[in-house]
């Protein structure tokens, strides 16, 4: 007799970051289907799904609705803002959130497991790659919330420590497509590279306008002055089309990459969510009576660091070429260091990923 376990899914299927939500959801559903079909598995996941539709004020009440069923684990949230909204609910009702998108770090909640990259696994290696390759003069953009602010604060710190200059730093409200001022500042300041921490339609509009600038003036061709991103994955390439050509991204996985547990996936969002659900199933099978996350993790940790609840991930730098990401560099695997307090592992740039 298999144990039936309710599993919350909390992704926005509409709104400005719906493509990412859908990619994560696909990874979760694929893991659930695989576990439920596995004759060796001791449990059957029964999804309890809620859709905040991109409305920030619906995350906390919908998360509470999920946790008021028998579900104790919720796979979900895309923006840091929504994650911070649900943490008090998780604390109050004793639930756990499995969060599987890149984020800005500086958090290690007792009620959250972080299965995608934090800055020591995305931004720092990306800048380590970009500064020698393109130069030390950077322009920073971002959406006007914690992801953009903290990514740009870190980038400023790293670029200035490397003796470089920040030529401009500008933000757009989530959903805004008013990118003309950023483009004008970039045209005037002529940076070596641009860090794009915009999300959704703001990012799509920016990439389109920057591509147009590159057509007008070769100094802004991606080969000369590329756009860097820690949040663009294959999930958003359909929305970006040709405008993504030449974009450089850091991530733990790119489509087609071999060696990721569970096979191949459409994007790192899908891959990281798949791993989250599969790891949860493994832990629940090992400790079926566990009370709370700490108990669930105790003595059974594999990919999750019991101190920080972050995971060890491959670090890849990739460029969009003819509509898909081509990996330029493998930078080994790194444990998540959300507070950037652990000594930085100097991984050999050409180290291959070993799984």
């Amino acid at each position, binding site marked *: 007799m298999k144990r039936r376990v309710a599993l919350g899914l909390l992704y926005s299927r509409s709104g400005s970051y719906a493509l990412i939500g859908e990619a994560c959801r696909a990874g979760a559903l694929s893991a659930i289907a695989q576990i439920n079909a596995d004759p060796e598995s001791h449990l059957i996941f029964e999804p309890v799904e809620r859709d905040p539709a991109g409305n920030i004020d619906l995350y906390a009440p919908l998360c509470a609705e999920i946790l008021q069923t028998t579900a104790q684990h919720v796979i979900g949230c895309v923006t840091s803002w929504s994650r911070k909204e649900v*943490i008090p609910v998780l*604390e109050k009702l004793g639930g756990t959130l499995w969060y599987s998108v890149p984020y800005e770090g*500086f958090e*290690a909640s*007792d009620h959250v497991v972080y299965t995608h990259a934090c800055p020591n696994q995305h931004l720092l290696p990306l800048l380590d790659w970009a500064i020698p390759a393109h130069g030390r003069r950077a322009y920073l953009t971002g959406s006007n919330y914690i992801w953009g602010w903290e990514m740009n604060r870190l980038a400023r710190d790293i670029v200035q420590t490397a003796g470089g200059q920040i030529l401009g730093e500008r933000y757009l409200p989530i959903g805004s497509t008013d990118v003309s001022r950023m483009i004008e500042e970039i045209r005037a300041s002529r940076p070596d590279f641009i860090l794009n921490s915009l999300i959704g339609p703001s990012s799509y509009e920016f990439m389109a306008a920057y591509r147009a600038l590159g057509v007008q003036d070769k100094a802004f061709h991606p080969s000369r002055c590329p756009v860097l991103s820690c949040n663009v994955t294959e999930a958003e390439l359909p929305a970006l089309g040709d405008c993504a050509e030449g974009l450089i991204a850091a991530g733990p996985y790119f489509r087609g990459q071999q060696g990721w547990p569970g096979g191949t996936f459409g994007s790192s969002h899908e891959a990281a969510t798949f791993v989250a659900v599969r790891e949860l199933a493994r832990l629940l099978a090992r400790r079926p009576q566990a009370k709370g996350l700490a108990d669930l993790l105790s003595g059974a940790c594999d990919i999750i660091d019991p101190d920080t609840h972050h995971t060890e991930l491959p670090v890849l730098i990739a460029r969009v070429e003819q509509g898909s990401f081509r990996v330029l560099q493998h930078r080994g695997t790194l444990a998540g260091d*959300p*507070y*950037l*307090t*652990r000594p930085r592992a100097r991984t050999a740039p050409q180290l291959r990923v070993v799984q």
Partner: protein
Amino acid sequence: MKRPLRIHNLGGAKALILHRPHPTVQALTRQLTAIGLNVEQIWPCLDASALGADFVFFDADMGHDDQFPWSPGASPMPMIALIGSEAPGRIEWSLEAGAHAQMLKPVGDNGAYATLLVARAAFDAQAALSDEIAGLRRRLGERQTVIRAVTLLAARGETEAEAYDRLRQMAMAWRITLEEAAARVVAAGKDTNVPRHG
């Protein structure tokens, strides 16, 4: 004033929690360990080895001066009060004990990181101000010496303003403070032995 936060030295830092065993200690230890600190719980007293700690969290509810191996307010590291009872007497005592920041009990899932940064910044600001004040006090105390030096120099036919300017130039040439130059002038004698700057 924009003061960049010093945050990269938290990894491997040592935090002491001066509190009886309690769920608050567990929750705080979990947070500090996740941030990357080494944590030790101690009760009822800190001994001399506490001098090597980078942060001290202390119980404001049951605390008293004899728990610390330093005088009240003179801790060599940032101190964080763990406050349960918000009674004014306890707040007053924790301020006198030298709290640079506080956390309210019960400690839950978050708050430790912000508290570490605030406590560190407050401690550094206080140390910088204390140094500056000590320097100003010392210079204030030397005011009499400066007046005597200027008088000595002026006695050779210069105006007070010219004498003061010459003293300033001597200090610059010798790369010492004005007060130290004045002390040399006074020590060098009442008239002709005054060294001239080159």
